[in-house]
C-alpha cells in the first residue's frame, strides 16, 4: 500500500517535471541570468511542490499552472534579492523584476481599460505577494482560506493585504473625484 502511494507520488512528480521543468528554468533564468542558479531554483521549487501535491488537483489545469509559476517566481525573486545583498548580481532590481516573463504589462493593461495614470502607477506599486493574491482570488477563484494555504500564510494576513490594496486604490479614486469636482 505504501509503495503504491509512493509510486503514485513519484509518477505525479515525474509528470510535473516533464510538464513544467522548461518553464521553471526559463522563468528563473530570465531573472537570475545564470543557468546554475536557475537549476537550483527549479530543484527547490520541485521540492516545495512535492510537499504540496495535495494543492495540485490536476497538474495540467490552469490553476496548477498558475501555482507552479508563482512558486518558481517567488523563489527566484528571493534568490535574486539575496544575491543582490551579497553583491553577486549587478543589474538594477527594478529593471530585472519589472519585466518578469509571464507578468502582465500594467501600462498596456491600464491603457486598455482606460485607467488613469495614477491608477496604473498604483497597480505598478503592488508588490509580488499582492499580485499573487489577486491572481489566486480573481483569476483562479480560490477563497481566502485556500489562498492562505497555498501561500503558507494565515487568512488574516491575506485579508489585510487585500484590504490594504483596496484602500490605496480607493484613496486615488476619491482624490480623482475631488479633483474633477
Amino acid at each position, binding site marked *: 500500500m505504501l509503495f503504491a502511494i509512493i509510486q503514485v507520488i513519484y509518477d505525479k512528480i515525474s509528470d510535473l517535471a*516533464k*510538464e*513544467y521543468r*522548461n*518553464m521553471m528554468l*526559463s*522563468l528563473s533564468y530570465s531573472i537570475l541570468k545564470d543557468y546554475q542558479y536557475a537549476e537550483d531554483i527549479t530543484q527547490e521549487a520541485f521540492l516545495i511542490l512535492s510537499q504540496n501535491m495535495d494543492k495540485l488537483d490536476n497538474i495540467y489545469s*490552469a490553476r496548477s*499552472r*498558475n501555482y*507552479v*509559476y*508563482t512558486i518558481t517566481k517567488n523563489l527566484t525573486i528571493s534568490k535574486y534579492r539575496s544575491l543582490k545583498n551579497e553583491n553577486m548580481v549587478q543589474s538594477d532590481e527594478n529593471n530585472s523584476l519589472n519585466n518578469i*516573463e*509571464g*507578468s*502582465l504589462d*500594467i501600462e498596456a*493593461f491600464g491603457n486598455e*481599460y482606460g*485607467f488613469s495614470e495614477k*491608477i496604473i502607477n498604483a*497597480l505598478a506599486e503592488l508588490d509580488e505577494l499582492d*499580485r499573487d493574491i*489577486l*491572481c489566486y*482570488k*480573481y*483569476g*483562479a477563484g480560490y477563497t481566502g482560506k485556500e489562498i492562505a494555504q497555498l501561500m503558507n500564510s494565515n487568512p488574516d494576513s491575506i485579508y489585510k493585504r*487585500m484590504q490594504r*490594496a*483596496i*484602500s490605496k*486604490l*480607493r484613496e486615488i*479614486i*476619491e482624490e480623482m*473625484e475631488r479633483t474633477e469636482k
Partner: protein
Amino acid sequence: MNSKREAKKILKAYGKAAYQERVKYVDSFSEEKAAFLRKISYRRVMKRCMLVALILILTFSLLVIGANALGIKFLNLSIFETDTHSEITGNQGNKTADAGEVKFYRPDYIPKGYSLVEEDGIEDIKMTYIYKNNKDEYLYINESVEDKFSHQIDNEDCEISTETILDMEVRVYRYKEPANSCIYIMKKGNLYIEISGNLKDDEMKKIIYSLK
C-alpha cells in the same frame, strides 16, 4: 462606498488579466500542447502547400499544353502546332470558290531532273501534282479550296518561319533531315497551296514564282 466598489473592480480585472498572462506563459512551454499545435499548424501548412502545389501544377500544365498546342491563325487557316506536329485546317464553313470557278495552278518551272509522275484531283475541290527525279526524290504540289484544305505536318527537328514571296505570306517548314527537306504553304487566289520536297529555298521560290 462607490470608490470601494470601483477599487475592487479594478483589482478584480487586474487579477484576472495577470492570471491569464501567467497561464499563457506556462502554456507556451507545454510540450504536448506545443507538439499538438505544431501538428495542427504543420497539417494546415501541409494542406496549404499541397493546394498551392496543385494549383501551380495545373497552371503550369495548362501553360505547357497551351504553349505547345499553339493556335495560330495564318491566312484564315487554323494551325495548331505542338512539339511533334502541326495540324492545318481551313475553315470548314468557308467556301472560297463556287463550282466552275476553281482554276488550279501549274508550275512553269520544275527543278532539273524532276518530271511529272502523277496528276490527281477532284474538280473544283483539290488537285495534286507529283514530280520525281532520278534520285527518287519527290516534289508534291497540293492545291485545295479552303473548306477542303486539311493537312497534318510533322514538325519535329524543324524550323518554322513565315516569309513573304510575291506579296504572298508563305509558312515555311524546313527540316534538318533529310537535307533540304521542306514544306511551303501559301494562298494564291482562292486556293491553298502546299509545296513539299527536298529543295533549297531558291528552288522553291522559283516554283512559287512560276505558278500560273
